[in-house]
Every structure is written in structure tokens, then in C-alpha cells.
């Protein structure tokens, strides 16, 4: 989420000459400040990262067994790439991202524009729009589970009201509908986050530009197209990429509501990795999936640095 260019390390002025004991105590102070974070980062972030890489070349299991762990070269990777369940999870993950990103971002941008324009009770509406952000995700999932009820749940009755003539939609139990249903719930759950970021971006667009455009006779659509969207370019890149990465991480919604089903139609990369590494205890194999996942996310994160200038 870091966007601003990293500030340069401040070169410290030489200052008055210090005694040897003074220098020693300065060194001690600096070590005391930096050491806890350095140690924790190394042990709990950098070490596990290299372990994931190492484990992906072994047949390590979660629970130690009598046969020692072997080095297996690229076997895990070749098996992953030939594993139809992996590819299904891979496709599902991209399918989810492809659906949820445009839906969620239109909701976010729409809501942000509403809240940025002339609106009565603006702070009330803003508080309301932010509620999904503060509702715990497991709670949101439970509420939507109730709305997804068949045959007479709230959503089924709603589509009937809008003219649906079929019997009912089996939201989570039909392989065609399960992922779109997860998309609806996920967009609802997290749109306020991007809404706030869009709102910050909108407030940075000078109001004079709109005034000038109106004098030039630009209609509302032209103003939206040429001032709002253009002014938000960097915000868009940032939001699209972070939302896509967030979508790649889809796990709790499908783990709780569908267990990856029906017929594996909602299994995702993260869920498949957890299933293999935790439930089936094949840490080596799952680590190969974890590394592939890491490469995927990093590629998108780097894309952002390329697409936003001055970063």
C-alpha cells in the first residue's frame, strides 16, 4: 500500500567530536532501537520465506515421520504444473478477480463521487457506507449465508421481484452460480476501502478544472471522462492492482461457505495450498504452490511500480 517514493536516508552531520565512551553508548542506543524489529523480521518473515523456497524442493511433511525428508529437485513444480486441481484453482482465482475487481471498483468510485459531490446528510451517508469495513469478515459471510438461503431466501425473493421466472437460484450449491455469489458478497464486504482511497483522490482534483470545463460547455459525461477519470489515473492503477492482489488471496469466504465446491468451482489458489499443506500435510508440495502464488502477487505488485511514474 506504500505509494510515496521512499525518502532518502538522511546523512547525519559529523557533529562535535565525541569521546570513545560516548560513541559506544550511541552505538548501544541504536542497537537497542533497531534490534527487536530486525530479529523479528528475520525470524518470522525472511527465514520462512527462504524456507518456503527450500521446502518446495523437498518432500517435507507437517508431522515428522521415520523416513527422512528427501531433496526432490523440481518434482513438486512439475507435479503442480500437471495437476488439474491446481489449474482449476488457478482459473477460479483469476475468474474471481476478473469479476470482483470491476464490480467492486465501480461501486467504490460511484459511492466516492456521490460523497464528494453536493449531497445532503453527507457525513451520515459516509458513516453508513463505511459499515461493511468495520464488520468482521466472518460476520459478513454468515449474514450473506442467510441471504443466500434456498428456495425462499432474501436474494431469491428479490430476483423474483425483478421478474425472475425460474424456480429459484441455488446460489452456493450450483457450480455456475457459486463464484458469482462469492463475488457479490466480497464486493459488498470491501468496497468502502477503495471508496475512501478514491475519495482522497477526488479531493485532490482542483475544482477549477470543472468550472473551466463547464464554461467551455462540457457536459456531465465529458467532465467525468476527461477530468475525473484522467485526474484519478494514478489512483486507478493503485486501486486496480491492490484490489486484484487482494482478490488473488480469496480464502475465508470460500472456505466457510462452499469448502471450495461445488465440484471444485470455488477452490482458490490459497485454499488449495492450505488444503495440500495443512489438511493433507504435504508441506513440500504446498510450498511449491506458495512460491508460484508469491511470483504471481509480486508480478502484479511490480506492475504497479512500472505503471505509476515517479515511484
Amino acid at each position: 500500500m506504500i505509494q510515496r517514493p521512499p525518502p532518502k536516508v538522511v546523512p547525519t552531520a559529523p557533529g562535535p567530536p565525541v569521546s570513545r565512551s560516548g560513541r559506544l553508548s550511541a552505538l548501544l542506543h541504536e542497537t537497542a532501537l533497531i534490534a527487536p524489529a530486525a530479529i523479528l523480521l528475520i525470524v518470522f518473515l525472511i527465514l520462512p520465506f527462504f524456507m518456503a523456497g527450500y521446502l518446495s524442493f523437498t518432500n517435507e511433511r507437517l508431522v515428522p515421520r521415520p523416513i527422512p525428508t528427501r531433496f526432490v529437485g523440481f518434482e513438486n513444480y512439475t507435479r503442480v504444473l500437471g495437476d488439474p486441481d491446481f489449474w482449476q484453482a488457478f482459473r477460479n482465482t483469476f475468474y474471481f478477480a476478473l469479476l470482483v475487481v470491476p464490480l467492486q471498483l465501480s461501486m467504490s468510485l460511484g459511492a466516492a463521487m456521490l460523497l464528494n459531490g453536493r449531497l445532503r446528510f453527507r457525513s451520515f451517508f459516509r458513516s453508513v457506507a463505511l459499515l461493511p469495513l468495520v464488520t468482521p469478515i466472518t460476520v459478513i459471510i454468515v449474514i450473506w449465508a442467510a441471504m443466500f438461503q434456498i428456495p425462499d431466501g432474501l436474494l431469491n425473493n428479490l430476483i423474483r421481484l425483478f421478474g425472475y421466472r425460474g424456480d429459484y437460484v441455488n446460489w452456493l450449491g450450483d457450480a455456475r452460480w457459486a463464484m458469482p455469489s462469492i463475488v457479490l458478497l466480497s464486493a459488498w464486504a470491501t468496497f468502502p476501502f477503495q471508496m475512501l482511497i478514491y475519495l482522497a483522490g477526488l479531493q485532490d482534483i482542483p475544482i477549477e478544472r470543472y468550472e473551466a470545463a463547464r464554461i467551455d460547455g462540457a457536459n456531465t459525461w465529458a467532465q467525468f471522462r476527461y477530468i475525473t477519470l484522467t485526474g484519478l489515473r494514478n489512483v486507478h492503477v493503485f486501486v486496480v492492482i491492490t484490489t486484484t492482489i487482494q482478490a488473488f488471496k480469496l480464502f475465508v469466504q470460500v472456505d466457510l461457505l462452499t469448502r471450495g465446491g461445488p465440484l471444485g468451482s470455488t477452490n482458490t489458489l490459497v485454499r488449495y495450498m492450505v488444503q495440500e499443506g495443512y489438511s493433507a500435510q504435504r508441506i513440500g508440495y504446498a510450498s511449491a504452490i506458495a512460491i508460484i502464488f508469491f511470483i504471481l502477487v509480486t508480478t502484479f505488485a511490480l506492475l504497479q511500480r512500472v505503471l505509476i511514474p515517479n515511484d
Partner: protein
Amino acid sequence: MTSRSARYVPTILAIVMAVIVLVPLSMMFTVSLNPDEAQIQITLGTVRAFIPHVASLENYQHVLADPHQPFLRYLLNTVIIVVGIVGLGLLVNASAAFALAWGQGAYRKLFIGVVIAVYVIPGESLVLPLLLMMSRVGWVDSYQVQIVPFIANSFAIFLFYQFFTGMPRELMEAAKIDGAGLLQTFFRIGLPLSMPVVSTLAILGFLDAWNSYLWPLMVTRGPEYRPLSVAMATYFTGQQAFWGNVMAFAVLMTLPVLIVYLIFQRWFVASVMSSGVKG
């Protein structure tokens, strides 16, 4: 469209948005107040599912009295974990960032580079090796396994670092002349001045920790150390047909966050906004 009626368009759209947000949430409250499970089943798909018409606390009593799913224990666990991660995290990350901004060592450039680099690593890629480590050292099913790995945070270090490098050099030199070492300067000047960053990170960290699911799912075995997020999932799976109880559990889990949100709303909005882009 006349300009007169066009004036109402934003208001109407805002109301639509509010309805979309509020219907699911008011459904949670309404169902949680209804003790009659058969009636809930009948009304779940109707307007009566989200407009309160009975007010009974029976479901809440069920949730709070359930010996197999000790709600208050889960709440306590969550609070311990959240306070642990956020509290220790602020101290550790702020102090490291202060040393990086105002220390002397030549390592600082490399350290900042590493902090920025590791920020892209998704936590999901690390859970399995971390789980292996934790199970080998016997930390599984404890508080520390849910706190210690998340104290140091590259995003937090970076945010503090940006703030500290922006502090006036004269301030630092004045402290030095007064004989204060780096440690005292941090505690007396750096940390107190960085309250905007502290509040941003506290709010984001609080939300993150309250929502965390995958890691606690893997490292807790029972109610003793399990946080609310995982407990909500287990309770939901175990009580499938009892919407009244499930929703009462959901309301009880949401209330603490909601209260914090209502009190700190202003800072809350600012902190999410500042985590995004500028220009």
C-alpha cells in the same frame, strides 16, 4: 430532466447505497432479537427479516451461556491478541524506524531496502513454513504464536520512517546538546510527536487482527486460545439451522468494533485514506 428534479438524483442514489449496506446488517440485528426459530425460517426472505418486530434477548443468553463455545473467552483471546500485536508492534516498529532515520550506522540504507522489498511478500506464502517452525518449537495453541510473528511489520516501519525523516534536524540536535542519547530522544521527542502515525497504524492493525482467520485457524486447537473470527466460523458451522443464535453471536462479535469505529471515526477515515496514494 429538469434541474429541479436532477437535484434529487444524488440523494436518491445515496439512499439506494445506504439500503444496500443497511439491509444485510439490520437483518443480522433483527434475526438476533427473534427467539422463535420457526418464525425466523418463514420470514428470512421477507421484509420482516430486516425490520425488527420482536425484541428478545433469549438468543444472546444462549450464546453467552453455551459451555462448548465460551463467547467471553473468545472475546478475551481476541483482545489479548489484538492488544499484543498492536501495542508491541507500535513500539518495535517506531523504534526501528527512528534508528533508521536518525542513527549513524551504514546498514540503514540496506535495511530500508529490505523493508520495502519484503513488503510485497504475501503472508499467505509464509503460513506453511511458519506453521512448520511453530509446531517444531511447540508454540502451536498459544497466545504467543498468534502475536509474536506479527509484531514487526514492514508497512509500519516504513510509515514511521517517512514521518521521522520529516522531523526538523534542529530538534534532534537540540536534544543531542541537552545530552539526550538516541534512546531518550526517541521516547521523549520521536514517539510523542508521531501520534498521527500511531493512530493510523493502531486502527489498521486493530481491524487486521480482529479479522485474521487463516493463521488462527491453523494454530489453535480449541476454545482456550481461539479468537472470535475462527469461533464465529465454527459456531456457524455447528449451529447451521439456528439463525437466531448465529446472528446473536455475530452481533456480539461486531459490537466492540462498531463502538471503536463510532468513537474514532474521524481518525479512522483519515487512516484508511492515508494508506492510499497521493498524486
